[in-house]
């Protein structure tokens, strides 16, 4: 049973002083038969009270506000997690029966949410690919692994080319992205085949170096298999997500699981640094650490994107005018 000590630091540094910061964190590892949390400490600038609740998808979600003026905000989450390897699906049931069972889930909670696909421009193109990939008499499990490999082989792992706002269509056209894009594409393909698929955010903790997604939060997909349940598959590393993957949250997509998000009032420019480091129980001194600077993974109330930075006052006024008009008065 591997034990991991994970430190996840999120650091916002603002150009000037900001205030009225409100944040939501989904940094509490899931506790179930495959994963247990031995210890968790969450330290935040200003020591605000973090309130948590369990959301619709079963994730523990925390939120806090920090009103005083500040120029940086650090969220430091340290967890001690133990994971247990799970057995892979026996996949003994005849394929046709499995597909039938999946068909029956279409109008059942919670699967209905994990079968609905978002609007996607390149849908016909994608459908052709799926047709080509899918083999006759294949079980959903086999199909899932095949598609996982397809994404792994056909998309380039290229940090920095996409942001949280990049659309699926853009990722499809780029044929490149990071773990979250890989996961979204795979999820879409699975859902089109009526295999319930959900997004997972978490950490990857390989006992060897060379896995993609280290040093930052990771993301992969989970598929629902008849007579088995949810199985994690990681298209970024083309593997089943097992005891080396620590799960934080599940949802329909990234925005249901985003580990840290926030809004604040004040100057527009900010830098976000995310650092995830993992210490292994069997090699405590050899900590695996790296830093990545991500493009704005947060939403700024006053002004943000480059297009608008020239006049944030005017931009704010315009948003105000438009939004005030938009409010439905039935």
């Amino acid at each position: 049973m591997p034990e991991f000590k994970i430190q996840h630091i999120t650091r916002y540094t603002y150009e000037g002083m900001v205030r009225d910061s409100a944040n939501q964190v989904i940094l509490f590892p899931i506790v179930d038969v495959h994963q247990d949390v031995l210890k968790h400490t969450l330290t935040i600038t200003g020591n605000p009270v973090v309130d948590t609740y369990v959301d619709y998808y079963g994730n523990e979600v925390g939120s806090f506000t920090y009103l005083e003026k500040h120029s940086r905000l650090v969220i430091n989450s340290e967890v001690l997690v133990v994971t247990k390897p799970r057995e892979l699906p026996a996949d003994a049931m005849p394929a046709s029966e499995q597909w039938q069972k999946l068909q029956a889930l279409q109008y059942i909670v919670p699967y209905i949410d994990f079968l609905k696909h978002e609007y996607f421009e390149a849908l016909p193109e994608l459908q052709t690919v799926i047709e080509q990939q899918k083999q006759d008499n294949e079980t959903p499990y086999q199909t899932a692994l095949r598609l996982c490999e397809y994404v792994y082989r056909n998309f380039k792992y290229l940090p920095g080319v996409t942001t949280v706002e990049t659309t699926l269509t853009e990722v499809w056209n780029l044929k490149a992205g990071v773990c979250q894009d890989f996961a979204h594409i795979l999820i879409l393909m699975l859902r089109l085949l009526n295999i319930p698929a959900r997004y997972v955010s978490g950490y990857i903790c390989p006992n060897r170096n060379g896995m993609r997604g280290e040093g930052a939060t990771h993301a992969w997909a989970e598929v629902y298999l008849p007579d088995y349940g949810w199985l994690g598959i990681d298209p970024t590393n083309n593997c089943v997500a097992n005891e080396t993957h620590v799960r934080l949250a599940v949802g329909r997509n990234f925005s249901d699981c985003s580990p840290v998000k926030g809004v604040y009032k004040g100057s527009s420019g900010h830098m976000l640094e995310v650092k995830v480091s993992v210490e292994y129980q069997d090699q405590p001194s050899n900590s695996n650490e790296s830093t990545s600077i991500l493009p704005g993974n947060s939403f700024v109330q006053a002004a943000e994107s480059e297009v608008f930075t020239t006049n944030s006052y005017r931009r704010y006024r315009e948003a105000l005018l438009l939004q005030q008009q938009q409010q439905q008065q039935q």
Partner: protein
Amino acid sequence: MYQSAHFSEYNAISGVWDEMYNENHNIREHYQRVISYLSKESADNLNKKEELARRLFMTQGITFTVYNSGEGIEKIFPFDIIPRIITGNEWKLVEKGIKQRLTALNLFLRDVYHDQFIIKDGIIPIDVIYSCPHFLREMYQLDVPHDIYVHIAGIDLIRDEKGDFYVLEDNLRTPSGVSYMLENREITKRLFPDLLPQCNVRSVTDYPNILYKNLMALSPRQISNPTVVLLSPGIYNSAYFEHTTLARLMGVELVEGRDLVVSNHKVYMKTTTGLQQVDVIYRRVDDEFLDPLVFNPASVLGVAGIMSAYRKGNVAIVNAIGNGVADDKAIYSYVPEMIRYYLNEEPLLKNVPTYQLRNADEREYTFANINTMVVKKTNESGGYGMLMGHAANEQEIADYKKEILKDPRNFIAQPTISLSAAPCYLQGSLQPRRIDLRPYALCGPDGIEIVPGGLTRVALKEGSLVVNSSQGGGSKDTWVLD
């Protein structure tokens, strides 16, 4: 009975229920007193009263805003001086029917965000609910005070050619227009001071008091003077006049999102003497914009973190968040079933037959009969995004069909109902115009209360069936007799 020239010219529209005339072209009993009173007035006098009404609206700034091609135009809500009269018996049915409907809708909202019995029992197809953009998973398992979701409802009623009442739509998010109900009555008092008591017209002025009482009762803090605020999007909103009016009549603060802040999961109002905790928020801001942290991150109208304060029960929000799943027009057709399911009663008010365009056969039927249909978007209000089949040309119909096929879930169709007509004073004579009725129901811990009256909207254009103010409609004072 003596009738002056301007009253004898009235020609009821054939095949349409006329509120004033019965089928034998006799004035219905409940209109007689008013008509005989008005008949004694000279045309000159009535014109003067009409002019006075217009000036009163103007000087008091009783306006609304129409948006067209991105520009807002502030307008006076046209007012017709002839009241719309409802008998005590008619009102009893309306009142009972709305109470029944609202009770069921509240139970539905509680159910859909908790146990979902109605889905499990197959009464409402799950995909209709789960595909509704206003079904907010953030509301799942969130308990609201007294299990009340709809504190304020505006249920739109129409009458068919037999005079039967139908519910046209339920407005359960941010129903508007109640200030016009109140202002119209004030204007009538000025125009015809002695007529109201003579006719035993029931009063509507209690509305702000009942609303205030209900809002106070929702306060999470057990204190004698909880802070109640009205959260408005701001001055550019079409109903800003109403927001100021209601805040003034209730004596509560009128605030915008930037006046509020969340600290330690409690909502505070920024005042000149520091932060003051807010207990109850009557908001006129859409769900999507209420909390930029949880919903639309670009919102500049909301309060970041308010959802967590709401979830913890530290603030009451009126109407509840997530009500849109109950007034979605695709859900509307299931309301009679809801009433049977939750209350074991037969619905007192009828539903207009509704075709779900997400179902292929109902869509084909609609396309084949589009000239007799009204097609609506399931999540729009105010008469926007609607197709009136009988009035549209080939091109408009073809374009609209294309829109429908893009996302059929978002459309429903209904047969065109011939709305009832009421007399209006137009260009010196009485003319029939089509009307609807929106009573305002208030739901509090003590139950549902509906002030006797409401907003009667009138399609002022001859032959028009669209009463929405945004589409050139006007309004009338609405009398319920004792």
